[in-house]
């Protein structure tokens, strides 16, 4: 079992990176995992160009897998662009964790990415250039 709850996972759970809320965030989104009620909220502050992730933070409540995966995810995307976030999928998160999860636990690991992508998607829709008048 040490393979699953190994040190780097426990370390991210006990000392989460990018933890906390961000004042004046451009994107704020929260969702829960209907399987267990785990919650994650992610705030994103964008750079001047509206594309670069200048600051990012998460808060939440849940199991080691969901919270540690969110911490690793935010470490990965800080300083990248919204377009980079859109390219990420569940497998990328599983690669970050580096341990094998059973089917039901994959949902825990993917919760942070689900929240982040949903928030980014909503931001993109709301800030899309108006279609050209034909």
């Amino acid at each position, binding site marked *: 079992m040490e393979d699953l709850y190994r040190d780097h996972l426990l370390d991210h759970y006990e000392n989460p990176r990018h933890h906390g809320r961000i004042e004046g965030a451009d994107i704020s989104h929260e969702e829960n995992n209907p399987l267990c*009620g*785990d919650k994650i909220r992610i705030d994103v502050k964008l750079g001047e160009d509206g594309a670069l992730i200048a600051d990012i933070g998460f808060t939440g409540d849940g199991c080691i897998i969901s919270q540690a995966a969110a911490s690793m995810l935010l470490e990965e995307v800080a300083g990248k662009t919204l377009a980079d976030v859109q390219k990420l999928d569940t497998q990328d998160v599983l690669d970050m964790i580096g341990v094998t999860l059973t089917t039901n636990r994959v949902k825990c690991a993917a919760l942070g990415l689900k929240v982040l992508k949903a928030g980014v998607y909503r931001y993109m829709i709301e800030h899309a250039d108006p279609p050209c008048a034909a």
Partner: protein
Amino acid sequence: MDVLDVGAIRRDFPILNERVQGKPVVFLDSAASSQKPAQVTQAMDQVYRRTYANVHRGVYTFSEQSTDLYDQARVKIARFIGAPAPENIVFVRNATEALNLVAYSYGRSALKPGDEVLITELEHHANFVPWMVLAKERDLALKFIPITPGGLLDLDRLDELITPRTRLVSFAQVSNVLGTITDPRPIIERAHAAGAKVVVDGCQAAPHMPVDVQALDCDFYALSGHKMLGPTGIGALYGKRELLEAMPPFLTGGDMISYVGFDRVAWNDVPLKFEAGTPAFVEAIGLGAAVDYLSALGMPAVRAHEREIVAYALERMSEVPGATIVGPTDPDVRGGAVTFTLAGIHPHDLGTLLDREGIAIRAGHHCAQPLHIRLGINATARASFYIYSELREVDALVEGIYKAKRTLRR
């Protein structure tokens, strides 16, 4: 009263010899779904091998045999819960469908705007959401019997909660989370005095204790077969005859009609009026075999066995530092489930770590989110027991918890 011969019982459950993660399985999730004895799987296997054909229509031997077995299953289930006649038993997929049938068919025909429906804070989503949806649609008031800090229904509030406008009361006889056993009789008496009908969700009760729907005098009673040794996909709704007769059909189609012309249709008699389409009759026959198995053990003995296991589990868990029991700690009012939280360890992580030891428990909100909101906790861990559970499995659980605490440095 007979005492269960658990060693003999376990020999009827081949799955209990399986190994999980290289270790003998310790299955502590029977409240979600029970394991099946060979008698049940063999009864179904025999139908498929020897007499299978669609019920009710055929005039040939296989169809007659299947129909007879299906009818016998209905008789067995009626007897098992003390129903006056097999016609009081409607076969459904599970208790969820039984409760939806009442909400759709009875609720939509008998309840009017302004009527009140009373449920409780501890309900499973299956006895919560259908009433919520119905209340929105019909402009009903949905009210809740609260729970006490000890996890019991606060029946002192009944006088104010049951009003002349209360038309329907629905509650779980045993909570799937807290394990709370509620005596339905005082609630049913008060509801009937106000002229309300009563639905009892017996999903966690019928598998574990004697049930007599006539003695309870409830109007409807819902159960799931898969929680009481039966297969998945089959459950039953008991209803009083006059109510079932008056209710419109839930689903329509084949088998539930007596006549169909181009401009009119007449419904079949109760209970077939509620069983549109080819029913899960092989599963019903399997449930009949499950009921035979439980009846042979004797339901008072089943309840006594689970009470013993739960009392032992509550005692062992009280020694574990950081463990908090959720719900009643008196085994007399607690069904076969022990629900708990563990300081510093999320139930999901505990579940995964216990799985590494071959121990199966449930973690999460157990389809009772409103209750968890009321309790102020996100998720709980639940170990639940049945006729094949042994005291040594409780010991394995407690040992597994200590190991998990060491692994996670808690």
